[in-house]
């Protein structure tokens, strides 16, 4: 749609050209007045009394919507459990959708209409249907009928029908003023005003009650998982969310494991656990957990009790061209499949597409039948949704624009706004679930894999009959993020340190691995040997990796080398190296 080749023009340029013709500069006003006096066809939406129903196919009159919204707000605010929800709302870091709904309704009744809309959007995104109804009414109230229709569809998708007693009464001014004393007005440049409650807000609630008794209301509902609006968290912290999405603990753990691996690499003949602890700076229990994982994943091996050496996984990873990484990840996935008891998938978002890069499935853990191409099902599959959560809004909108969300099962979210608000409700690093949205017989969960600037996910799928295992399985799967991240750290796909701009992979890490791997200089006839080789060029301080051509390639092809540029050469002349003759040879060199 947008022409990407052209240099971006300033917005003022577009604005200057946006003006339209004035078609009605010479409009016949008297004729219009005459028509108005003649025609007496007044067609208005019939009012059925009671709540306006979003399912009815007619835009709701603004006045009617205004009254209904006030009645909903009064009902929510005067419900018996509301005081507890409002009290708990700040304590839960403003994440409880029921608390957000109650707070928004209180704001609306107090005249803070903009802030109310923000919190309704938050609660609706977290699955609170009454908040969607409030938004439907709020948009209708302002004549924003297109936006109102979006929420009407959202409500229709949930099968929501308004109900309960509808009571309208005036709110006392003193009650409104009391609320304003307990509200902090924060401001976000993108989201507009974001009011936040101060402690003690619940004490003003009795002022909203009618003089009689409170009306009965349904008990407070709780959301099934921890929910946080990422933009909101960022706004509250005054920071912009950036860097790898989530995976905080796992990434830290993987970095600890990386430290241990570095120590193992320094001691090719093995090292005692005590020495390892000293050099890596890890305490006993932490170190034991890391070592257990490293041994299981074959990064380390234990020649005898209390002694650890570098394991075969490190040599696998050092193979050029990503083949070793894939092999090691496959190994990790197989282990994950067995401990989780479900088919496990690794995926990436590359070139604007969802791609399942690796799968581990087995007879007891069948993979998902890809009845619709995963690339077209990002809105339905856990993998796709998890990848979309890690994109920014424009990236998501761009993806959805290219792949129209299709209804795959009765539970698929096909409305892109509803989808986005559902994605926004997922806290960074939290799992994303697909509860029979892609295929009626399958449930899935996906966890984000923080890989620098790339977007990835680790996911599992279970037959719907095993849905009760989904939560424990996801928990187990989360622990498997550590070896996956470790493999990515070791190959330089994720920067090993924790720098603020997590941008490019660390070139020196890759160069170091190449040097560990390519040790045998090639001379004369040996140069004809097939296989990858590395040319180290001291003049340019660079190394060129020539990969072996793919064996099944039908056409002859010229393979360009990969260049690694900060590279410390071994000698002072051009050197052609091939892979060292296995572990023995490489250790003997030292």
């Amino acid at each position, binding site marked *: 749609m947008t022409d990407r080749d052209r240099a971006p023009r300033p917005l003022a340029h577009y604005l200057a*050209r946006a003006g339209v013709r004035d078609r009605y500069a010479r409009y016949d006003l008297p004729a219009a007045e005459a028509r108005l006096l003649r025609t007496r066809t*007044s067609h208005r939406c019939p009012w059925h009394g009671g709540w306006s129903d979003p399912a009815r196919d007619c835009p709701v009159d603004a*006045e009617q919507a205004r009254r209904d919204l006030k009645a909903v707000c009064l009902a929510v605010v005067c419900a018996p459990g509301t005081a507890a929800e409002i009290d708990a709302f700040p304590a839960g870091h403003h994440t409880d959708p029921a608390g957000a709904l109650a707070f928004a309704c209180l704001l609306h009744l107090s005249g803070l209409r903009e802030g109310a809309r923000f919190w309704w959007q938050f609660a609706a995104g977290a699955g609170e249907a009454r908040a969607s109804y409030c938004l439907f009414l709020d948009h209708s109230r*302002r*004549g924003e009928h297109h936006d109102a229709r979006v929420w009407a569809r959202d409500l229709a998708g949930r099968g929501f029908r308004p109900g309960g007693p509808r009571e309208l009464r005036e709110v006392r001014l003193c009650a409104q003023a009391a609320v304003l004393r307990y509200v902090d007005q924060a401001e976000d*440049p993108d989201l507009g005003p974001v009011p936040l409650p101060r402690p003690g807000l619940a004490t003003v609630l009795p002022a909203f009650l009618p003089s009689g008794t409170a009306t009965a209301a349904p008990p407070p509902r709780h959301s099934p998982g921890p929910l946080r609006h990422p933009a909101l968290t960022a706004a509250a912290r005054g920071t912009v969310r950036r860097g790898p999405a989530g995976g905080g603990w796992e990434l830290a753990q993987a970095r600890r494991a990386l430290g241990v691996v570095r120590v193992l690499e320094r001691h090719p003949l093995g090292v005692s656990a005590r020495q390892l602890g000293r050099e890596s700076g890890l305490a006993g229990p932490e170190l034991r957990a890391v070592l257990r994982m490293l041994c299981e994943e074959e990064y380390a091996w234990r020649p005898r009790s209390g002694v650890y050496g570098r394991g075969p996984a490190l040599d696998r990873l050092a193979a050029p061209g990503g083949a070793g990484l894939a092999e090691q990840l496959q190994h990790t996935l197989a282990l994950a499949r067995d401990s989780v008891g479900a088919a496990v998938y690794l995926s990436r978002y590359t070139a604007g597409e969802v791609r399942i890069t690796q799968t581990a499935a087995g007879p007891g853990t069948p993979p998902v039948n890809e009845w619709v191409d995963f690339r077209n099902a990002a809105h339905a599959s856990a993998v796709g949704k998890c990848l979309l959560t890690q994109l920014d809004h*424009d990236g998501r*909108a761009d993806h959805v624009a290219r792949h129209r969300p299709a209804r795959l099962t009765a539970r698929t979210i096909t409305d892109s706004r509803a989808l986005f608000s559902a994605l926004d409700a997922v806290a960074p690093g939290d799992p994303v679930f697909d509860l029979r949205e892609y295929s009626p017989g399958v449930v899935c969960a996906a966890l984000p894999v923080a890989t620098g600037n790339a977007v990835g996910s680790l996911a599992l799928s279970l037959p719907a009959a095993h849905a009760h295992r989904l939560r424990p399985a996801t928990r187990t799967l989360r622990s498997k993020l550590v070896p996956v991240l470790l493999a990515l750290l070791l190959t330089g796909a994720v920067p090993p340190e924790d720098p603020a701009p997590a941008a490019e992979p660390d070139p020196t890490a890759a160069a170091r691995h190449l040097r560990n791997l390519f040790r045998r200089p090639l001379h004369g006839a040996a140069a004809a040997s097939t296989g990858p080789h590395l040319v180290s060029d001291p003049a340019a301080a660079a190394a060129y990796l020539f990969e072996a051509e793919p064996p099944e390639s039908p056409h002859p092809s010229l393979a360009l080398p990969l260049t690694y540029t900060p590279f410390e050469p071994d000698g002072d002349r051009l050197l052609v190296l091939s892979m060292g003759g296995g572990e023995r040879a490489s250790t003997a060199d030292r």
Partner: protein
Amino acid sequence: MGLPSRRKRPTPMSQWDAPARLSYWAFHANRRPAYMRFAYLQLGSDADAEDAVDATFDAIMNEWLRMLHMDRLEAYAWTVLKHRIVDQQRKRNRRPEPMDISAFEAALKDAAVDPYDVLTDTIQFYSAVSRLAERQRDAVLLRYGLQCTTGEAAAVMGVEEATVRSHLSQALRRLARLLAAPRDGMPGS
């Protein structure tokens, strides 16, 4: 509430007092052009725009005596217009993309510049506008499409001028991101 009931039949205009009648026609004369231009951008046809705006003022006539008691008369009139535009879109049973209409209308405005270049720009701009929230979209259409001042746009929408400014600044921030355009050199409102 002190408003006359909306359930009973509307009083015919012949029984209105003179100030009510005068104020109605003044409001009509004042708003008709802006409403027509806005409606045309949503409907893409002069006849449809005229029908929608006629229906709007017809409904307003029925409600006028009640509306005179409202503190936000313009805002209510605006919601009536938006309602009638949606009705008209449904009656025609087709959904021309309103933003395409705006893009072509903007490109046709001045023939001096290269029309294809202008059209590319306006299509880009209005497709970005279509991704805004509805009230931001309306504010942008009024301010940059119809080239109203912020004060005029606020009067048409029936909101405070500060509200329109904040809609516009949020919209421009988002448009700059959607168009990947640098925001400097922005004309002040």
